[in-house]
């Protein structure tokens, strides 16, 4: 039986906890980490984060300590910190859960980051669809300012730091680190070809640290327990805990926090998700829209980054979407490619045209009008997209299609013959 290990969602254990009340947060032991960090100095804080070997939770899995060190090294000021709250990945609800359960955790994490890297200004990039959070952030930031946890000379440490909430306009691509910078600067949210790292020249051409909300929320725990204390959790490569969003055809969908490496994906679905709803399981989308579609046979791998990488998979933003037997894989792949065709920003041709054409070919396949050559053509386009796109969106957009074709070849074959095993697709139907 898999047990939850609640570090970030520890507020769930307390009855009557009011997330928007700073007194409740202080009673829980909030802002102790900030005080400890100020006691030991910024150099120590960066070292502890490096020692913890925590990796970014946004999807790419970049080492957070390395990022912090390179930003802390920069002399040119002012520096900026961005909390990436543009949680657009399909099925992912982890950041939202953190902000709903314990928003001060994020604020404290950002303040510690600012202290460690000598940053003056932080941004929370709020996802366009999350309308409720900007007013809430305003309320809690006001409370933090009134207690001198934000603003000028925080806790007499000499640190000046404030946070601004920036609202996105509802573009998936703005989760990408160069597009988020453009969006904050007020331009159209489109990625740029990076000449220099973001940590050298980011938003407004200044050194910038872009971290995911979940990553930043881990910082108070790391500071309180030290890098070694955090490293004790999880495996050698994937330390700490992870909030897993289990959605789709399961009995209890939701966000659950587990220790890395303590269980397999199958255990997560069965124990925490409460098993598959309806009939048996057909496939799992691991790691969000840009992740892979895998078969039930490969669910026995441990939930760690290194095990997933060994299988050529990615945990992405920590989402597991379960599909039961009544669904159709071609339909799912078509839906996902349609999502990317809609969300592609249109800047580079491989992604703009590639997503559109793969989506069109899969649409033909759903109606039983595609041929073997069309699929080969789609694979060719997918290869081009992988190698020639500017940003991560285009490079990973074809992954669900490619993995579906690899793992569910028989489904595609039966569609080529004009049959849909799940009886979902409108075979022989018209354009509508």
């Amino acid at each position: 039986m898999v047990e939850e290990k609640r570090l970030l969602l520890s507020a769930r254990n307390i009855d009557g906890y009011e997330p928007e009340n700073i007194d409740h947060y202080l009673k829980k032991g909030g802002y102790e980490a900030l005080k400890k960090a100020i006691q030991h100095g910024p150099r120590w804080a960066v070292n502890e984060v490096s020692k913890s070997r925590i990796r970014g939770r946004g999807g790419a899995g970049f080492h957070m300590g390395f990022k912090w060190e390179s930003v802390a090294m920069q002399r040119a000021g002012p520096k900026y910190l961005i909390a990436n709250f543009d949680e657009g990945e399909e099925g992912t609800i982890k950041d939202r859960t953190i902000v709903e359960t314990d928003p001060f955790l994020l604020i404290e994490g950002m303040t510690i980051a600012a202290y460690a890297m000598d940053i003056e200004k932080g941004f929370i990039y709020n996802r366009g669809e999350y309308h409720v959070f900007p007013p809430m952030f305003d309320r809690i930031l006001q409370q933090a300012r009134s207690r001198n946890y934000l603003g000028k000379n925080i806790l007499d440490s000499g640190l000046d730091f404030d946070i601004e909430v920036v609202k996105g306009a509802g573009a998936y691509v703005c989760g990408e680190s160069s597009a988020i910078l453009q969006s904050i600067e007020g331009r159209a949210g489109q990625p740029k070809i990076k000449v220099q790292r973001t940590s050298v020249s980011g938003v407004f051409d200044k050194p910038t640290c872009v971290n995911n909300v979940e990553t930043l929320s881990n910082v108070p725990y790391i500071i309180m327990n030290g890098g070694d204390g955090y490293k004790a959790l999880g495996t050698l490569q994937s330390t700490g805990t992870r909030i897993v969003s289990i959605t789709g055809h399961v009995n209890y969908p939701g966000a659950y926090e587990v220790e890395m490496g303590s269980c397999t994906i199958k255990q997560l679905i069965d124990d925490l998700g409460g098993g598959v709803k309806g009939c048996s399981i057909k496939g799992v989308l691991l790691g969000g829209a840009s992740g892979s579609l895998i078969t039930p046979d490969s669910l026995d791998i441990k939930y760690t980054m290194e095990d997933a990488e060994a299988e050529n998979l990615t945990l992405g933003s920590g989402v597991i979407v379960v599909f039961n037997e009544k669904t159709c894989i071609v339909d799912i792949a078509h839906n996902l490619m349609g999502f990317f065709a809609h969300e592609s920003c249109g800047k580079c041709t491989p992604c703009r045209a590639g997503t559109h054409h793969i989506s069109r070919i899969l649409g033909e396949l759903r109606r039983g009008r595609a041929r073997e050559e069309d699929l080969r053509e789609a694979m060719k386009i997918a290869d081009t997209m992988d190698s020639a796109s500017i940003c991560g969106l285009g490079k990973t957009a074809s992954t669900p299609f490619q993995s579906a074709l690899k793992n569910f070849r028989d489904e595609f074959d039966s569609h080529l013959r004009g049959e849909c095993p799940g009886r979902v697709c409108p075979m022989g139907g018209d354009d509508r």
Partner: protein
Amino acid sequence: MKLKVGIFGLTSCAGDQLAILNCEEDLLEVFDALDIRVFTMASSGQDFGMLDIAFVEGAVITEEDIEMLHHIRKNTRRLVAIGTCAASGGVATGKDILGAAEAYKLVYGDTMINTAPLKKAYPLDYFVEVDYTIRGCPIRESEIIYYFKKFATMDPHKNQPLPLPIEKELIEDVEEIKDHVINYLPDKCISCRRCVNVCSEGLGVDAISMVGRNWEERVSTPFGSNFAKTTCIACGQCIQFCFCGALKEREYNIRKLEDVLRMKERVVALVDPMILASITENLRTDEPENTHALMRKIIVALKQLGVWKVFNFAAAQHVSLFSTVRDSLSNPDRRKILSWCPSANIWISKHKPEYAKYLDLDHRPGPIARELIEKRYGPVFLVLITPCTAMKKMSDFDAVISTKEVSRLIQKNRINPDLCDIETVSFDKFIMTEPYIDVLADTPAIDGLGDEVVDYAMAFLSKQNVFQKFELPDGTVVRTIDYPDVHIRSATVKDLTKADDVLKNINEYQFVEFIPCLEGCITGGGQYPNTNPKIIKDRLRRMESYNQGAIHWSNRVLKARVYKELEGLLPRTCHDEEVS
């Protein structure tokens, strides 16, 4: 608010209106979204008020048709020509070949009909401005439904001037549509961003950018507004940088010009020698070693087309320079910015309005040329042939045609410049008498006209002209000349993004000129597009050889003296009040 739509028929078989009625499946859905005010075939009554879109089919054959067409154009914001007859005249243009009387006899025999047909049949765009054209005989049902839906729901994309969202445009005046010199055809656009990059980074103008995302990404002005309201300076660099022909200049109706040439006796062409830079890229002619021979070929071709006199527009530019020099020396606080480049004028008035008082708009080359020509020859129809896009915005001329259009005009009329006798031909002269012809061979502005300006100033002050010329690190060329009593400084800014230094210190300079087009007029919007470094090099070589071949290229002082002697003819008399 629903769009108000009218569907009209001029002289035709009404097949296109029938085609619209035949789209049974989609018709009701479409008619729900639009407010159909007039449908000649399906209803009666002609009182329609102001319309948003008028679909007109049929050719213009009778006087009533012309009247009707003007009435429709006056009362609609967009006019769409549907069908072959409306687009190009159609079957009725057979009259042109047979002759009107014979064609009448062939069709009607001896029967008399009430209406008096015109001698020829015309398409709609002969008389009025047509915004969109749907071709076909009859038009395809899918196409008309596509257009209806587009009009009803979103911006249509074909043959369209750039302001995209049609709803926004509807509020504005019909007249403003004519202000567009740049057209955008989204169907041809491949979203490569060359135009956006040159507009924002190359020029710092930022008039266009990409809007929308994924497959729907398009080039647009801010909020799809009219070009006149944006920061656009009409330099046409976006046209030059467009590889696929999505951005185009608004074209002058060549058919109209041909008729003018046939009807009127005194059609005068002002030719900017700058057209030589790219005209051989399409005009099928042997390119001679000597570019002056090419110029003569073009002059002969124009004369064969029916042009009465061909003048050199560069001469008008030089006269304009000279009068600017004369007036700015007498009034040093004003009129420092040379006015020969219309795009630079627009740039100053839109982007740097605080410096607009230095602009010398009284001495624009166009009005000066017209004044001098009309003084000597009486009223004329003035056609300017130029590579400049911004000139198309000016109302100084009766017609402005670009390099592209003049070569099309020559080819369409089957004139082979190679067969012309070019030995005895040269530009006609409009400002001087015979003895001065050899002295005044005016040269076009490759690198701006800063050198000439300083020479003219020296000649005007009766000083010796040895000036120092040097280039600043940002590419600005500065010329200085110092005497105990007088200091002359002139600056030529070749990069608009770096113009601030010169503008801030404008009081140090006597003359300032701006060249918005990258590499100067050889990449003007009216030249052939798709410039790349090699083509630009070729063009530069051609123009330099032309300038070297010009007589007395080095003897500008003499030229200035000639101008001075001819001062009685110069427009100081035209602007007496202002100068005195």
